[in-house]
């Protein structure tokens, strides 16, 4: 009789780059729910600092193409492909596209299943963005 042992391999790691905290949080929770380790970055500078640090080892960079930083968008993708060739790079231009890409990542692994309908994640992003827009805390 054998007992199930936890996998020795670390969970695949997604470096999620998005400057909008609401979009980033919902996408990160979605990817975590399907088993990925997710590291969050708000700018390309932060993303490159995390990649250079090397811990955790990043497998995939999912980046908002408009995220700020010294190396933006397609230039960031080129830079990562050149200096971190083991990292898959996915660029997304809109939250909807980013959710689609996250859903595809969840189809590929590590649990081979989407945690829930990605449309729910997109709806949550839209709800939080709308609430933030209409209920900005007043300046004091």
């Amino acid at each position, binding site marked *: 009789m054998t007992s199930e042992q936890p996998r020795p391999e670390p969970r695949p790691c997604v470096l999620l780059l998005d400057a909008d905290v609401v979009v980033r949080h919902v996408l990160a929770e979605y990817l975590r729910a399907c088993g990925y380790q997710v590291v969050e970055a708000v700018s390309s500078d*932060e993303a490159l600092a995390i990649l250079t640090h090397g811990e955790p080892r990043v497998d995939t960079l999912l980046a908002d193409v408009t995220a700020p930083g010294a190396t933006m968008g397609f230039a960031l993708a080129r830079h990562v492909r050149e200096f971190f060739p083991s990292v898959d790079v996915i660029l997304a231009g809109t939250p909807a596209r980013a959710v689609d890409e996250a859903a595809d990542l969840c189809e590929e692994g590590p649990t081979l299943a989407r945690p829930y309908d990605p449309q729910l994640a997109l709806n949550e992003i839209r709800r939080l963005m709308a609430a933030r827009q209409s209920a900005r805390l007043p300046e004091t």
Partner: protein
Amino acid sequence: MTKAQAVPELAGRSKAILVVEDEALVRLVICEALREQGFTVVEAASAEEAEAVLASGLAVDLVFTDVHMPGTFDGLELARRLRLRRPDLPVLVTSGRLDQAGANGATGFLRKPYLPADALALIFSLIRKEAME
């Protein structure tokens, strides 16, 4: 209901900590430590981002904020604003340049550099205290 059909409870499945820290690697370490303890963690890289989180309605049970960060206001100002608007929300302030007295107004203070275990212990104690009040 299957797992794939389950509705996400992004803001309510566990105690949620809003971590406000502009140093990505510092943020990474403390956020991972909190997640390992079962917390839902929302990451913000500035006080402005933290306000955007709170304005969006995401439920947060405690704010753990650095003081000196880029942006139009710092972590102390964030703590001051939250004390006025959300006096029930614990705010733990961390800084390498201030002491407890300098962080007057925060619910708690943790001097930088800190060990994740020390931050966790303080966060647990503040949340327990909040739950008992």
